[in-house]
């Protein structure tokens, strides 16, 4: 099966020879660019129409007036499609020293560093990938990049694509729908439980780090899948806008967990729409870590559509100097006996700003539904700020809603206590911060938890004095 890969590579190289000139100067967004993207990908007519209609939507819609400041975002100054083969053209020497230094501090092996920095398209894990892929195929699991899925599994693709996040949902969903490229596609058949987390890492494809990636996960009845995306290394990109759409459908009795850790460079606008539909007795869990970026606006949502469906969002947001994390969660209870949990942990430092923005909504049919929301913020210095903005909509009398919010600072007494045992001020602060996000870290797969702790340690360096 790994043999497919070289073919795919050649295919892409073929494109480059033909269309190179157009895409070297291709900033801004026009129907022609959308057409070209679709044509280059060899897409069916319906997808082209979908893209063009989405572009119209995008142009019609205003920028959101809530959330973060988008004034400096210039849609004409963005390259909407960069061919993977061109991304590979970068050399290791061109990657900024500070990025390399961060990789080193995080203890990431060089092969992986090159992959992360976009220098090499393949992260050397082919053996693992190959074995995993074989195993999954035996079970009938489809796991590939979204472009390939459109070609290879057109029916199941068309049936679900755009059903959870329609293009008209918001301006950035419309934009993504017009220019999307890459992302993951997963289909898990009835009753199949994937024991090993599926990781974007192993889906050897240079479009992993795409800026408009589109992910679609369909978990059929009674199945289970854990998808892990991103990593703790800073995402190095010359492009300033990342706008992904993630759609998840958890059918009756299925369980899906989606884990992301993203550490964006400070020039990035990270405007992402993540939404899942949970049918009867299905469980959807978002584990979402957001570090860095200029502005992140991201509110993973679960539409609890069937009786007894469960939703969970567990998130952390870390905002440093000049950064704003406007993040939260949405739980829409549309059926009886649905339950949801939101645990949001935010940290602001060096003048960073964190906002929790969330919705808990109970429809008329949400008899006996329960929601539990907990937002904790840790502020590390006097220049940093936090806000909590919860919205509740309740259309049924028989529901339970609990909301708890705390804002704390690293206390003098805690620091003194830890330091009196020999820890330096920086070590003591790190320890308090790591303890604060522990409910998040403990949910991560082991290797990510280790990386996460290293990252926090790194982020906290220089936080003192």
């Amino acid at each position, binding site marked *: 099966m790994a043999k497919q890969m070289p073919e795919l590579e050649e295919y892409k190289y073929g494109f480059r020879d033909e269309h190179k000139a157009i895409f070297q100067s291709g900033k801004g967004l026009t129907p022609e660019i959308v057409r070209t993207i679709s044509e280059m990908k060899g897409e069916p007519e319906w997808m082209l129409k979908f893209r063009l209609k989405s572009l119209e939507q995008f142009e019609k819609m205003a920028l959101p007036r809530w959330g973060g400041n988008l004034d400096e975002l210039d849609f004409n100054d963005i390259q909407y499609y960069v061919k993977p083969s061109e991304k590979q053209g970068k050399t290791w020497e061109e990657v900024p020293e500070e990025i390399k230094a961060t990789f080193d501090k995080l203890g990431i092996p060089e092969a992986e560093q090159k992959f992360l920095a976009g220098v090499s398209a393949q992260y050397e894990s082919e053996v693992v990938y190959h074995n995993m892929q074989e195993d999954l195929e035996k079970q009938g699991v489809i796991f590939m990049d979204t472009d390939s899925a459109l070609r290879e599994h057109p029916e199941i693709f068309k049936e679900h694509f755009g059903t959870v996040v329609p293009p008209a949902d918001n301006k950035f969903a419309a934009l993504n729908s017009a220019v999307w490229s890459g992302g993951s596609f997963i289909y898990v058949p009835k009753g199949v439980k994937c024991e090993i987390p599926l990781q974007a890492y192993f889906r050897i494809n240079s479009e992993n780090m795409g800026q408009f990636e589109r992910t679609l996960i369909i978990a059929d009845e009674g199945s289970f899948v854990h998808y892990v995306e991103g990593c703790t290394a800073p995402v190095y990109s010359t492009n300033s806008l990342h706008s992904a759409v993630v759609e998840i459908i958890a059918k009756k009795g299925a369980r899906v967990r989606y884990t992301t850790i993203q550490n964006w460079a400070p020039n990035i606008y990270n405007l992402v729409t993540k939404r899942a539909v949970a049918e009867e007795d299905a469980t959807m869990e978002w584990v979402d870590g957001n570090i860095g970026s200029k502005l992140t606006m991201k509110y993973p949502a679960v539409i609890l559509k069937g009786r007894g469906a469960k939703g969970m969002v567990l998130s952390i947001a870390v905002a440093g100097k000049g950064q704003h994390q406007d993040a939260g969660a949405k739980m829409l209870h549309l059926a009886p006996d649905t339950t949801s949990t939101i645990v949001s942990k935010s940290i602001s430092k060096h003048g960073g700003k964190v906002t929790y923005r969330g919705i808990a909504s109970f429809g008329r049919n949400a008899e006996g539904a329960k929601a539990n929301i907990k937002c904790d913020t840790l502020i590390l210095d006097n220049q940093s700020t936090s806000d909590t903005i919860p919205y509740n909509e309740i259309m049924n009398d028989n529901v339970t809603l609990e909301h708890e919010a705390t804002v704390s600072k690293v*206390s*003098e*007494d*805690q620091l*003194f*206590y*830890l*330091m*009196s*045992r*020999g*820890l*330096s*001020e920086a*070590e*003591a602060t790190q*320890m*308090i911060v*790591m*303890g*604060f*996000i*522990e*409910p998040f870290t403990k949910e991560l797969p082991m290797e990510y938890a280790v990386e996460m702790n290293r990252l926090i340690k790194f982020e906290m360096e220089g936080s003192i004095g």
Partner: protein
Amino acid sequence: MSSLFEIHGLKSAIEGKEILKGFDLTMQAGEVHAIMGPNGTGKSTLASSIMGHPKYEVTEGKVLLEGEDVLEMGVDERARAGLFLAMQYPSEITGVTNADFLRSAINARRGEGNEISLIKFVRLMEAKMKELDMNPEFMHRYLNEGFSGGEKKRNEILQMMMLEPKLVILDEIDSGLDIDALKIVAAGVNAMREPDRSFLIITHYQRLLNYIKPDYVHVMMQGRIVKSGGPELAERLEAEGYDWVKDELGIVDETVGQA
């Protein structure tokens, strides 16, 4: 040769109010000193000032550990130099397990490249917890979170045993302990007594001193030591209270007038 620990003319204030008013004490290696006194005489301020709590401002004096002035050091440096304060009200740190914390603290002393191995650490911690009759689950509980008063005190002693400091200050370690817990804590302290380690025990009651025999007993009033003696002094204080000391020295108000 200098003494293990010396305090000279220590003055310390909180929020601009002077509490310690020229405190002097000299301790030789291996000695146990008890500081007794009624409430509000500056005992806990002494402990916090020596360790360097940021709320207390030391305005005058010297505190020497093996001849080095610890007042010139940061709190963490004082700890690494060999000071240990078992606190009256230890902080709770959520999300950080007792074991993780202690291992970090041990490694902070040992320095990079010389970290204790995980297995060695776990064995050591298990052994010490057993000595203190602590439930092994406390290893993985979050630091002091949800601990009862007595459990916190035991946890302080556990830290002392694992960090092996040179000078130990026990600040009201007996408060909130029932007699069984007190005996266990005392046994833990006694097991740590060594020719090159000294203890400064701050207590309100003589009870603790039945189990940890001090070499010297000092009475603190008005922010300084007003009377010193041997163990018999503690016994007399237990039997007769503090009034006779006040009468003898002509002290009307023994406190530093905090209220």
